[in-house]
């Protein structure tokens, strides 16, 4: 079969010593940065992007794969040992894992999350390898109007459907869309929103936005509420290894978590929160030890961790086949591709199969490396967690600004970084989600150019959007997804009034 041949070819690329070294460095850096409290996988990728942009595309994408999975693993270590999930998808892990660590079972908690991540990551990557070619066959038939409709679905699902408030999610999205307008219009060469500043003609750099919003914003936010609580690091006591009982209680949650994570991640709906919480509630319902839930049940770590990793691999399906990022991390991966002028999508599979399949094969390798490296090295990661907070955040800020200084050492760019930091701080304080801003900045210009291309082909007739069955269906889905939360909220209010 084609997939096997392609995957074997990818393996041949990934297994070259240089590429293995890249994967190893990626896994190591990803875990080291991801383990720092408050830094999720998206920020890990964003921080390390400028560092690797001198490498060739193949090698750096392979390093990416390692950084991605390493960042995920590091995030769950933090969630278990100090109960500060770097992202909402690790919240379920923190719930049970931190209790386990407090009860002296931090070792098994880390082990089940590492092995579960490995199992889920491997199964989900196989799923990716088989689903991707099939989706690519489908996607080559997409016209510009269909792409535009697909982006509309992504816009709505990323911002409106799953947040607490669709209005705040959409507000974030539109801030991102506004930032995406800045710069020279590609079709006519006219400057938009540049206000005569030459640095703005190139548009807003995705890494500057992401690092500003995530890293600088987070540092400001944590500093502003430092007086609230002190984080407490749980030492890893007792055995690192899982007992027979732990294995027996873990393997089914791993598989069930994978079943939740991969399909939901692969849908252009985004977010690992839904599958992790689905997995958590399912395990809570199915467990033989319901009394342990909330006090450190191993199922509550195994399931959500597997779901989290599986959905991370799942988000690579729309990213690689359609060029559609549905999470902040996927958006950063897309920025990484764009750094080399590569546009993920059906064409990339045809033009650079070595790159795409090398990346997919590297995901397998990164997974194995993480399993082998992380448990023995857990002592090292714990030591990273013990860095005093002032130095930790000072270091994060130095590292964050360093990326921008290395890429574009201009006063304007650095001021933008600081400005986005303030924006990120305010958005955290007023509870606006951050990922839609990044997705809006990346997808906004693409959606616009697809729409304009579609309208140019149809000689300006907007009905072209409804005449293509694919586009009409997708726009319908987008509309339903946009209106559903408002309707449901209305129903909820109606009910509340009745009571």
């Amino acid at each position: 079969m084609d997939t096997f041949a392609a995957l074997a070819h990818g393996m041949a690329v990934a297994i070259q010593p240089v590429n293995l070294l890249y994967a190893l460095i990626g896994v190591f850096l990803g875990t080291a940065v991801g383990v720092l409290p408050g830094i999720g996988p998206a920020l890990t990728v964003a921080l390390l992007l400028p560092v690797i942009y001198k490498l060739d595309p193949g090698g750096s994408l392979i390093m990416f794969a390692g950084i991605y999975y390493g960042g995920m693993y590091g995030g769950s270590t933090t969630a278990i040992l100090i109960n500060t999930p770097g992202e909402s998808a690790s919240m379920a892990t923190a719930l049970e894992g931190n209790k386990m660590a407090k009860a002296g079972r931090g070792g098994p908690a880390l082990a089940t999350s590492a092995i579960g991540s490995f199992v889920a990551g491997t199964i989900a990557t196989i799923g990716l390898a088989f689903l991707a070619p099939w989706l690519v066959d489908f996607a080559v038939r997409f016209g510009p109007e269909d792409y535009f409709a697909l982006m509309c679905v992504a816009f709505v699902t990323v911002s409106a459907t799953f947040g607490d408030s669709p209005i705040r999610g959409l507000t974030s999205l539109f801030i991102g869309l506004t930032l995406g307008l800045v710069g020279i219009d590609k079709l006519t060469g006219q400057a938009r929103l540049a206000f005569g500043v030459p640095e703005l003609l190139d548009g807003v750099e995705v890494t500057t936005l992401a690092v500003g919003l995530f890293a600088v914003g987070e540092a400001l936010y944590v500093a502003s509420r430092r007086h609230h609580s002190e984080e407490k690091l749980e030492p890893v006591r007792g055995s690192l290894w899982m007992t027979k009982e732990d294995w027996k209680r873990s393997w089914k949650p791993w598989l069930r978590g994978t079943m939740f994570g991969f399909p939901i991640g692969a849908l252009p709906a985004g977010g690992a929160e839904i599958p992790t919480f689905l997995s958590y509630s399912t395990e809570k319902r199915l467990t033989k030890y319901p009394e342990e839930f909330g006090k450190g049940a191993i199922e509550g770590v195994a399931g959500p961790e597997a779901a989290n990793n599986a959905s991370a691999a799942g988000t690579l399906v729309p990213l690689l086949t359609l060029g559609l990022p549905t999470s902040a991390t996927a958006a950063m991966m897309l920025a990484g591709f764009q750094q080399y002028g590569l546009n993920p999508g059906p064409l990339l599979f045809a033009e650079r199969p070595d790159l795409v399949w090398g990346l997919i094969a590297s995901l397998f390798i990164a997974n194995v490396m993480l399993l082998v490296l992380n448990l023995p090295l857990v002592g090292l990661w714990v030591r990273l967690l013990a860095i005093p907070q002032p130095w930790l955040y000072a270091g994060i800020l130095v590292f964050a600004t360093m990326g921008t200084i290395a890429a574009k050492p201009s006063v304007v760019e650095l001021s933008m970084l600081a400005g986005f930091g303030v924006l990120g701080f305010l958005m955290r304080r007023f509870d606006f989600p951050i990922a839609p801003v990044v997705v809006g900045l990346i997808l906004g210009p693409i959606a616009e150019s697809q729409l304009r291309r579609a309208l140019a082909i149809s000689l300006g007739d907007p009905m072209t959007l409804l005449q293509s069955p694919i586009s009409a269906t997708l726009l319908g889905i987008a509309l339903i997804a946009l209106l559903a939360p408002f309707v449901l909220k209305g129903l909820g209010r109606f009910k509340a009034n009745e009571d």
Partner: protein
Amino acid sequence: MSSGDPARPPRRVDRAGIVIAALLAGLAAVLVFDARGLSSTAMYGMGPEAMPVVVACGLALLAIGNFIDALRGNLPARESADPVPVVLILIGLALLIAIIGFGGGFILATSALFVTTSAAFGRRAILVDGIIALVMSTLIYLAFDRLLTLSLPTGPLERLL
């Protein structure tokens, strides 16, 4: 930004929310104003000015939505925030930008940011932190400059190396 007053009673007009709504409306106005200066050259379909107007309409609608939320006091409860560390970090960033802008170089600039951030998080040992920062940023500079051959801005300190 308002600080202080934690656990504000719900269902009260949220002043910060009104400011947010006003800012969104202002942004929409800027978009429309900027789009008016663009000339449509597209023969068919939409020119460069169409998308900004669409985004501006969206922002205007969201400004109204946020305004209603603020009037109803629907914003989630906020914990009190301490403005001092935030201002300190922002001073650090301003110092970094100024030092880079005036050619002070990478090492001095990042050291200034390190020390102010560390102070914002409660450290008072400015001298020790300053030495740590200088050593660390010098090492980073050397690693980037020599190993990765990325060029970082140079100043008086970098020229000595």
